[in-house]
């Protein structure tokens, strides 16, 4: 039934030049905005929201969803080429994408990311169409205790995955968690660590930190390398990877897609946790875990697939329960409301045509992103050939603009500059910067849910072990920390 309506709507959209024209424009703008450091998917949507007012609801949804889906891929372009994640979900893409680009294989890295995005996007959509109510049910069994433990698990896995020792990773992640506590206490609305300054009271924004710690730090690293600069990037040889290399990645893409959809469907979890889980998992399952962080294709394909699949996942709570799962779907829902449509439990029953429209929009957006992505890949990859001086001046400029634009406030520029220096120092100390950003993202979720669980359980910590999912997450986190120690102890014992 739903497939019939889907096919019908798809045909209808394809036969209306306005519709696919809108999707095309949306995808084009989305890729560019997503690639700009500092413009997250949320901001891209907020910027374009007024444009959608003049359109009818179906066209508006098509346009906005096109922007949403394509900005997810756009975010990985800057991650691969200049080591700055354009969107938070692209943070792990750069672990392997950037090294690959530095080896002269920017095209390969972008192709892995693009193909994985497409596969993940389609998996997310397929699960959304077929299993939305089931996925919603599963996501609803995630409550405060599970959220708290899921963030612990995510942080541990990420510290494990982001290169260097797990303990260094955890140390950096803990600093990130502390940074997330600056500003209003999320449960009591009382300011903390803000030194009575108005600027810090609103907390530390994610974007200036990300842009500074990855982008500006990279600029500083190149400056410090002196006039000769870092080793030159070899010329781009073959743009696309051989077909066999891509086909071999089907497993990481499939796993990433499924994880991404489910994690995306959990309200507030978001793509950051999805990509962290996928990356760590691929590293564990790999026969050659040591290649991760040096340009391993599976390290790009898995997380990229998860990142795009989380789009479909994040639409689940919106379409089934009328609740936005994350800030991005919140903007989509706002757009629906302004157009007089209320997404919610009644929407499926009352308006199947509209629901099919959303599905078709995701489908068109995924396919058009693939087409446009490949069409312009050669042009985009040329960024690697831009003279370094010019490239890094532009990046520095974009860092400043991106940080300022988030709240139209100079304070965020200072914060960006500060974290640029911090990021550079961390490079010198060989501390991985990514866990800091993940700590900042997940710290507030962790604290809020941990404390709320304790309010609900009236102070009993038992709540975390009584619930099966939460208990499993604790066990998995402990195993991740203790396993390397156990292996070490075992080897020493054997050596005796």
């Amino acid at each position: 039934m739903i497939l019939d309506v889907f096919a019908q709507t798809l045909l209808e959209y394809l036969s209306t030049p306005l519709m696919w024209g809108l999707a095309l424009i949306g995808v084009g703008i989305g890729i560019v905005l997503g690639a700009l450091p500092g413009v997250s998917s949320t901001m891209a949507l907020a910027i374009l929201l007024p444009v959608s007012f003049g359109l009818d609801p179906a066209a508006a949804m098509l346009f906005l969803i096109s922007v949403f889906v394509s900005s997810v891929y756009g975010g990985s372009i800057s991650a691969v080429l200049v080591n700055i994640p354009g969107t938070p979900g692209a943070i792990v893409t750069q672990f392997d994408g950037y090294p690959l680009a530095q080896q002269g294989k920017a095209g390969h890295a972008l192709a892995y990311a693009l193909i994985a995005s497409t596969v993940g996007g389609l998996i997310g959509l397929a699960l959304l169409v077929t299993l939305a109510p089931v996925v919603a049910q599963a996501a609803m069994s995630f409550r405060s205790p599970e959220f708290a433990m899921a963030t612990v698990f995510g942080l541990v896995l990420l510290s494990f995955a982001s290169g260097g020792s797990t303990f260094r990773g955890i140390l950096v992640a803990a600093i990130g968690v502390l940074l997330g506590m600056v500003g209003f206490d999320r449960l009591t609305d009382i300011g903390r660590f803000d030194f009575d300054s108005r600027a810090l009271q609103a907390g530390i924004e994610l974007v200036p930190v990300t842009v500074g710690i990855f982008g500006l730090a990279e600029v500083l690293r190149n400056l410090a390398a002196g006039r000769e600069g870092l080793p030159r990037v070899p010329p781009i040889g073959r743009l696309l990877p051989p077909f066999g290399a891509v086909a071999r990645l089907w497993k990481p893409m499939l796993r990433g897609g499924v994880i991404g959809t489910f994690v995306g469907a959990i309200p507030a979890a978001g793509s950051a946790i999805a990509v962290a889980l996928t990356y760590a998992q691929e590293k564990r399952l790999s026969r050659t875990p040591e290649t991760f962080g040096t340009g391993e294709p599976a390290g790009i394909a898995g997380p990229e697939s998860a990142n795009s699949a989380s789009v479909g996942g994040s639409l689940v709570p919106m379409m089934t329960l009328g609740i936005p799962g994350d800030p991005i779907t919140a903007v989509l829902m706002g757009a629906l409301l302004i157009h007089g449509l209320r997404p919610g439990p009644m929407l499926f029953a009352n308006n199947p045509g509209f629901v099919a429209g959303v599905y078709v929009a995701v489908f068109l957006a995924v396919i058009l992103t693939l087409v446009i992505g490949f069409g312009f890949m050669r042009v985009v990859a040329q960024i690697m050939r831009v003279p370094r001086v010019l490239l890094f001046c532009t990046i520095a400029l974009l860092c400043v603009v991106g940080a300022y634009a988030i709240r139209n406030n100079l304070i965020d520029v200072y914060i960006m500059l500060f974290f640029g220096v911090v990021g550079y120092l961390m490079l010198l100390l060989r501390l991985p910067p990514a866990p800091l950003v993940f700590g900042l993202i997940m710290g507030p979720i962790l604290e809020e849910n941990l404390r709320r669980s304790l309010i609900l359980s009236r102070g009993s910590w038992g709540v975390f072990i009584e619930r099966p999912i939460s208990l499993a997450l604790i066990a998995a986190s402990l195993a991740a920390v203790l396993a390397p120690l156990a292996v070490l102890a075992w080897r020493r014992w054997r050596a005796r």
Partner: protein
Amino acid sequence: MTGPKLTATLGSLTLAAGLALTAAPALSQDYPDEPINIVVAWPAGGGHDTVTRLVADYLSEELPVSVVVNNVPGAAGANGVRQVEEAEADGYTLGVMGIHATAQSYMNENATALDAVEPIAVINIEPAALAVRTDTGIDDFEEFLEYARNEPGGIVNGNDSPGGFSFLNAAFIENTFDIELTKVPYQGYAPTVAALVAGEVMSATLPVPMLADLHEEGTVRILGVAAEDRHFRVPEVPTFKEMGHDYVVTDYVMVFGPAGMSDERREVLETALMDAMSQDGFVERGEAMGLMLNPGDADAAADLLTQMDDLIYPIMEDADLVTVRER
């Protein structure tokens, strides 16, 4: 951002220099000649954001310039309100606020005192409601009270963090009916609804539009609406007044500017806003969004502000939230 400000500064300099009477009408024709920014103190997609974008859409038809919505979230809305307070009072930076601004002014040293802003127009009011999960077996408000009296703290209610509207609403119920709820804070309305649907909390003190669909579908039962009149989204649900309780608690959304705006400019904005809100399409679309539209001019806005202040100050005092500024 300096563009409009610079021009506006030049504009006010002209005003200062040329106090000649002929200058005045010329000036009011000059205003507005730059885009007008409306600051929303909450993230894109939220309640304040959507209503403001709707108003901005119609307002830009009434004015010769475009109207841009800026989201400046943070510190429970205090951040955005302060950005407007500190902006130049030239009529190019406006803001939208609700009861959060009143609450923050008493509990946050860095928040804007309400006499530092100037109300321009009211857009809508947002009555509170009380809803329970259907599977609690609570059928009406009397049963709710009975449950809470038999088991103090036994009702687990989802609400904002202290100072938010649904928190104030829960605190108001506790004070007025002398009961005790376990108030569990969530970051905003959407997570509270999620918690109610998932069964993590038993009740929620949210506004009607968030709950109406779930009420129709049967997961949730709205026990009463804390307004003078019934809410058009759920006409079958009685008001608490009808049940004989003096329980009227509503949030509001109003447009304001920094204090010290010139009367002419404020009037230009006030007229344009009132005209925008009286367009047919506006009312239709606003009601489709579930808004209780209540357009009012600057005087009405000032009155409403005082009225809300009178309502929530005692609640905040009882909840020990008046910490930095007394009345």
